[in-house]
């Protein structure tokens, strides 16, 4: 990597001569084997005492030396120290590149003391949780299940693999929380790319930002954001896995990269998921035990079965993403062209309540997209990093409900006299959304010096939706297309002071949204007034700050605040063209989010302890409420909610043993009515422990055993106070345990067995919707990486 071009070298020399009075400025860069700049490497001049410097955030350094010959001693923790001889001579100045190679022996020692990327992010001023998947790649687990272990997060599922889920973060859910992959917003991409589709094997880590979201995640996130990071290392590797288990579940992943010496790069990520989800359930009613058998003609109860198996719940999804490009060129640090294709099909077993099942309703979705990534780490020799991402995506989602009869829970067809309606009771449908998403994300980073940085981010997220129904001769929802154009600008300053003990970021975000649509009045025969153009624009300024202070070596305090918004979705504003009516006056939802907490990382005896406590306050207003109106309904800004809570985690680690426990308590109130909001878990947590036996069976073998427990306290479905306590509906207390056993040889060959819900407990996330009981999974994984590294 040549940073300095010839012309500027000459210029540089010229200035050096002008200003340096016989002293020459030596300039260079410290990099690792992957040409990644090393920050903070120490460079000492062996010949001159007290002469030295350290590399900056771009790995660069400069040092003033009189003419002569010198030896530079460059060292960095985890790397072998390098001696470089230089000649300082006014007539032949050159740019010095110092290559450090990893010191494997030292690195093994260092790992405990050194900070992983996850730790580094966690110690940022933002309230963020980081999950590394290193130890989890061998287990049959998807990202949603991983995120479910984060304090403040509850993932409420309505079934097995691929089922609908509600991701809730500090009480926010739905589109109030935004999802990203490598910083790219994933909203509106449908259900084939949601995180329950991604096995943990495919990613390196997940970051969960609570309430206060850094600007590089450009979205109208009202209550936080989740960003998952895929493998970013410039290393050639191949990672394949396959797992199989209960309910005819099969999953496979392929993850690989190839980098050649000329800077050509190819990356691929792919997954396949399938499950019949034929697990046993014991109730379909919030109150009544067993499955009621009904008279097929009259609907009266005639018998009760103690259990049935779900019979129409299969899920399949697949995705492949390939990227081809160049890395580490003089003109670009990263340039990739990518294509993604994904699809899924999902059998729907029942509606919100499982009292009456479906046997034929299905949904199908697909996404096709093309993307471009451009990254340049140094612009015009300034400490400026630029990254641009562009994407065009087509999303199609279809609901299939064309079956003329009903099903009962025994899986039998119940005939109806009315053969014109679909199984869900409405019109038969092959309803399809056709969405187009255009996305641009540009981020710029400028370092004034190693303590002051500025960030700028721009995200354009444009969505155009059109609905059609191949089956219907009449009107379809969203038949009149609508578009949402969100433009989000973010600007942030990051300052570190007091020997980096104090770190503060202040930021502002500008949300510009323009939502356009046409609403057709079918009953109006006057062409001039038949179509009404609607346009809703909003301009909101959000702002916030995050600050952390290292009180003591082991203790860090953090505080963060953000005022933020969520722009309405198209259907919330325009309705669906049928019974959901438009409200063009809908304002964005608005929230003020505060976090205050501390990180305490003492060493107690042999144990490295990690205590992370956060208190949060969320004041949200203008929340959308679905107002019924005759047979129709529309969204209005109505609700105002406050959520106050505390979440904490204690983790202890010693050698090959770890134990961690975390818990969250939150109290959600409707501020206007001073009533506690029901149907949200308010007290939950989990517990994990594990041990690794090194050199097991063979010298290179490693056996791991781990245990996870999940707990959610019983919570009321409708109200904390209303109704006779005996008659109230509750989602019962949830307690389930998973055990994993894994064996790896050199990290290359891996096999694991997982037993989920080992006590076969009846667990519910939603009222009356039972989740899978005991289940077993076996996973095989092969991981190959080249020992040779590209330079």
């Amino acid at each position: 990597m040549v940073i300095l071009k010839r012309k500027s070298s000459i210029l540089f020399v010229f200035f050096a001569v002008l200003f340096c009075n016989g002293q020459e400025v030596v300039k260079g860069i410290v990099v690792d084997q992957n040409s990644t700049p090393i920050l903070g490497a120490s460079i000492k001049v062996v010949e001159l005492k007290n002469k030295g410097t350290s590399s900056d955030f771009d790995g660069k350094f400069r040092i003033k030396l009189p003419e002569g010959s010198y030896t530079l001693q460059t060292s960095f923790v985890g790397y072998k120290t390098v001696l470089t001889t230089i000649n300082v001579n006014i007539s032949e100045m050159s740019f010095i590149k110092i290559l450090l190679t990893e010191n494997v022996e030292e690195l093994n020692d260092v790992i405990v003391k050194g900070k992983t990327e996850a730790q580094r992010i966690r110690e940022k001023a933002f309230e963020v949780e980081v999950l590394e998947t290193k130890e989890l790649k061998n287990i049959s687990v998807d990202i949603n299940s991983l995120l479910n272990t984060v304090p403040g997060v509850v993932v409420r599922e309505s079934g097995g693999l691929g089922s609908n889920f509600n991701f809730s973060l500090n009480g926010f859910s739905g589109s109030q929380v935004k999802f990203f992959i490598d910083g790219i917003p994933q909203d509106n991409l449908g259900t084939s790319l949601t995180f329950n589709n991604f096995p943990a094997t495919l990613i390196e880590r997940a970051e969960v930002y609570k309430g206060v979201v850094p600007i590089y995640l450009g979205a109208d996130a009202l209550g936080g954001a989740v960003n998952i990071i895929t493998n970013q290392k410039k290393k050639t590797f191949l990672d394949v896995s396959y797992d199989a288990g209960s309910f005819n579940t099969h999953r496979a992943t392929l993850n690989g990269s190839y980098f050649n010496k000329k800077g050509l790069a190819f990356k691929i990520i792919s997954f396949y998921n399938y499950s019949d989800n034929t697990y046993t359930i014991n109730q379909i009613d919030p109150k009544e035990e067993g499955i009621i058998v009904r008279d097929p003609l009259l609907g009266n109860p005639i018998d009760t079965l103690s259990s049935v198996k779900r019979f129409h719940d299969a899920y399949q999804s697949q995705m492949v993403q390939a990227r081809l490009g160049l890395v580490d060129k003089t003109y670009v640090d990263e340039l990739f062209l990518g294509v993604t294709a994904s699809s899924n099909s999902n059998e729907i077993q029942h509606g919100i309540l499982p009292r009456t099942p479906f046997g034929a309703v299905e949904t199908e979705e697909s996404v096709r997209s093309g993307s471009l990534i451009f990254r340049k780490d140094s612009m015009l020799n300034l400490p400026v990093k630029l990254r641009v991402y562009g994407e065009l995506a087509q999303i199609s989602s279809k609901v299939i409900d064309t079956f003329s009869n009903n099903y009962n829970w025994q899986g039998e067809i119940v005939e109806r006299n009315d053969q014109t309606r679909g199984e869900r009771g409405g019109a038969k449908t092959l309803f399809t959304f056709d969405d187009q998403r255009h996305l641009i994300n540009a981020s710029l980073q400028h370092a004034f010096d190693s303590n002051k940085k500025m960030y700028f981010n721009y995200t354009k997220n444009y969505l155009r939706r059109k609905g059609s129904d191949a089956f219907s001769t009449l009107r379809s929802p969203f038949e009149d297309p609508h578009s949402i154009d969100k433009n989000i600008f973010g600007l942030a300053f990051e300052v570190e002071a007091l020997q980096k003990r104090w770190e503060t970021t202040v930021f502002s975000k500008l949300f510009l949204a323009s939502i356009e649509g046409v609403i057709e009045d079918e009953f109006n025969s006057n062409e001039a007034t038949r179509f009404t153009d609607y346009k809703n624009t909003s301009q909101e300024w959000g702002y916030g700050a995050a600050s952390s202070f290292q009180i003591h070596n082991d203790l860090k305090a953090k505080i963060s605040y953000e005022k933020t918004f969520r722009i309405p979705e198209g259907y919330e504003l325009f309705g669906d063209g049928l019974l959901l009516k438009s409200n063009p006056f809908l304002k964005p939802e608005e929230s003020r989010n505060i976090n205050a907490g501390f990180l305490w990382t003492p060493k107690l005896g042999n144990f490295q302890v990690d205590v992370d406590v956060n208190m949060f306050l969320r004041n949200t207003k203008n929340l959308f409420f679905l107002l019924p109106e005759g047979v129709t309904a529309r969204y209005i800004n109505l609700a105002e909610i406050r959520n106050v809570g505390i979440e904490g985690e204690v983790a202890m680690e010693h050698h090959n043993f770890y134990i961690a426990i975390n818990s969250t308590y939150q109290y959600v109130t409707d501020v206007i009515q001073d009533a506690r909001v029901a149907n949200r878990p308010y007290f939950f947590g989990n517990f994990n422990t594990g041990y690794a036996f090194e050199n097991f069976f063979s010298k290179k073998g490693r056996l791991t055993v781990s245990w996870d427990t999940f707990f959610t306290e019983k919570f009321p479905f409708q109200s904390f106070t209303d109704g006779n306590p005996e008659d109230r509906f509750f989602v019962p207390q949830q307690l389930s345990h998973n055990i994993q056993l894994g064996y790896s040889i050199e990290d290359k060959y891996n096999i694991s067995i997982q037993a989920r819900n080992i006590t076969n407990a009846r667990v519910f996330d939603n009222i009356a919707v039972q989740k899978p009981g005991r289940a077993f999974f076996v996973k095989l994984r092969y991981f190959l990486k080249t020992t040779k590294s590209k330079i």
Partner: protein
Amino acid sequence: MKNLKWSVNIIAIMIALVTTFSCSSDDNGNGLDPNRNPVANAKYAVGFQTLPVGQSGPVDYMLELSSLESLTSGELTVEGQGIPQTGWRFFHQAGNTIFTAGYVEDRTCISYQFDENGDLKKVTDFVYQTTLNNYLAVDNNTLLAVELAFGVDDPAATAIPDRNFYLINAETGLVEDIKSHAVDSSIGDGTAQNPPYIPWVTGMVVRDAKLFLSYHKYFPDGNGNAIAVDKAYVAILKYPEFELEKLIEDDRTSSIGTNGPSTGIEQAENGDIYSYSSSSVASGVLDATKPSGVLRIKNGETDFDSSYFFDVENAPNGGKIYWMDYIGNGKALARIVLDDSLPQWAAFREQGEQLKLVVLDLISQTVTNVQGVPPHANRYSSPTFVEDGKAYISARTGELLNDSSTNVADGETYVYIVDVETATAVKGAKVNGFALKGIFKVTN
């Protein structure tokens, strides 16, 4: 193979049915007990709709009252009491049983009775195919309910499916029979002049072994809009045979009834049948040009009384009717839309001041404002509860729920006890919720 399995199942179910029924009649101790004093054992219950909390909609409760006084003073609340229901529900009574039936997805009708200890308890439930939209307590033994779901956009459809009428045993809470009948449906011929429609029943009366049904002709696109609204329609079926006897229509007013209430057509003490036509956009009826008013079918007749039309819209104190319910002595209570320039369905909003309460004297054809009830809002209601000649209704006042921010905590709901003879009302109990969807008296 499938068919064989199917028939085996039906036989099995038949056997099970017979056994269940024969067993249940023995141990059904909460039915009518002739030894009980009906007045002494009078019990009251209400269908209670709470305010929405957070982003969740209101919750319906079945709430037992300690006495009638609970409606006349104090506060009514479901805090710590009442049986919660899932989803939005209809509340109707037949005999000593109160039925609550869910809407669209929640296709379950639950029945409640007072047990020997005087506690309101669930008896049983049954499931239906879509939504039971209109109800009639035929007598103390039978609740009649009809499914109206309209979703005829199957391009292959060559006919409109029949409506399903459920005959529900008011003692057991179970379905005894389902009758299907087209009532008045048309697939149309694809032209605007002759569009398809389904009958949307707005009221039912059984008189002289005939079932009278008032209805709108709904365009079957799922939008809830009627065609040809400038006529009133009534179908007359033989009951309980469900055979069409006659379709009658009248062009002096618009289609009868509104979506939701079951009182579009009702019978007076002398056997005369009265119906109301709304003609109001805010009540959901688009494009009506005929005045809102009341028609009559005289006792013994099967045609509209051509000598009778009560033009409520143009009468002094009148206006467009949102809802009417016959109380007695030739008098009915009605809600008049105060501002029909509101958008379609706005009269149904659960908070606002868009309606006024009036007494309609159906004989002298006069409209009298009820003194003591302010302009208010109220959505669906079960047939009005009347005791000692007084009608008990719930009404909510407050700022109209609107597209822009409105506060539901600013509104107030009260029970009003209306003396229909004098057209005066007194404010009764405060309701700590949106509305009472129904008030019920059980005398077992």
